[in-house]
């Protein structure tokens, strides 16, 4: 499945008349959300307002009100509670989406698949911009992502929960996402070159420890959002992560719950 280009796509369903798509772009992936339900469209417009994008060739996503049918299948499908994502090369269908949170979840899953062939992925991490470069603080739930974000200057946080990383214009870039945790912010739709990755480890001192290639891979893998069990997709992910680790330094950051950690990162 190749999802890199979306120009010239055919809409997955025909009956889209009188439904103006909500055009957004996340991680430089243009998306056209066809939402007929006014009760869902309005919160979606609010939620993704910072990611509005005027594009004619967004990857079409059609939200269907009806319940998921068992026989619904595409090149990739994923069931999340009552909602289901069906992904085809020409577009995607979201079924049974009842609220914006389900929409948000399916968008994340979709993006993991769309970004994969483009050397991109989503990571459980906070992205903080300092001196024009992005620092990714990653770790599982409770590692301290939101704490790091809360200790960073206002406006410097691209996301406190889900970081979007992809290779473009000859370097690894961190993109802002509308996927936030405790901050509940609208996000910032911009991209910043990545300075480094920091696996969070709460401690009684501030210290940075460089990770070997294998250690970095072992640290990153469980924090990547990934929803497919396809072998080739995992091979692509491995290749992407190893390419990234070759170019971008990865560390373990021991930190206390204060902003002193910037001193050891800068050192």
């Amino acid at each position, binding site marked *: 499945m190749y999802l890199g280009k979306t120009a010239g796509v055919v809409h997955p369903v025909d009956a889209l008349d009188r439904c103006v798509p909500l055009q957004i772009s996340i991680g430089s992936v243009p998306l056209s959300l066809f939402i007929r339900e006014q009760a869902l469209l309005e919160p979606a417009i609010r939620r993704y307002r910072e990611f509005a994008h005027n594009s004619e060739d967004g990857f079409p996503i059609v939200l269907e009100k009806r319940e998921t049918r068992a026989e619904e299948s595409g090149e990739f499908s994923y069931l999340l509670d009552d909602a289901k994502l069906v992904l085809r090369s020409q577009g995607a269908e979201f079924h049974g989406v009842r609220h914006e949170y389900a929409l948000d979840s399916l968008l994340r899953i979709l993006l993991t698949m769309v970004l994969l062939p483009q050397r991109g992925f989503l990571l459980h991490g906070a992205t903080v911009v300092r001196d024009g470069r992005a620092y990714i603080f990653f770790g599982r739930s409770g590692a301290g992502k939101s704490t790091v974000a809360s200790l960073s200057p206002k406006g410097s946080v691209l996301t406190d929960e889900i970081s979007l990383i992809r290779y473009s214009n000859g370097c690894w870039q961190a993109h802002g996402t509308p996927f936030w945790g405790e901050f509940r912010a609208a996000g910032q739709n911009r991209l910043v070159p990545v300075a480094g990755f920091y696996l969070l480890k709460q401690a009684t001192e501030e210290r940075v420890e460089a990770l070997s290639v*294998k250690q970095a891979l*072992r640290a990153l*893998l469980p924090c990547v959002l990934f929803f*497919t*069990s396809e*072998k*080739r997709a*995992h*091979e692509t992910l*491995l290749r992407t992560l190893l390419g990234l680790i070759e170019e971008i330094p990865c560390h373990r950051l021991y930190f206390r719950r204060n902003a002193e950690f910037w001193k050891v990162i800068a050192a």
Partner: protein
Amino acid sequence: MSGQIMRNPKLAWREVDGEMVIISPEDSQVHELNETASLFWKHAEGKTLDELVERIAAEYEVARETARADLEELLAALGEKQLMFVAPEAKE
């Protein structure tokens, strides 16, 4: 034991600094092999245990019994994690 030794075809893997990192896509389990197991992973595919015993015994000048015991132990460990297996012999 003369069936061919095979890697589990469902697994995704890459070599990192001479050692294998293997992912099981079905459960996202990550396995890391040490240097010896990584060599086995690279070179045992498609060979029989008897062939490997002969090769190890010749190259490292060890007794066949020793080579066989070591290889069987390694194969059993990899088999337990469902990383490699011995394919059943084709019937004539």
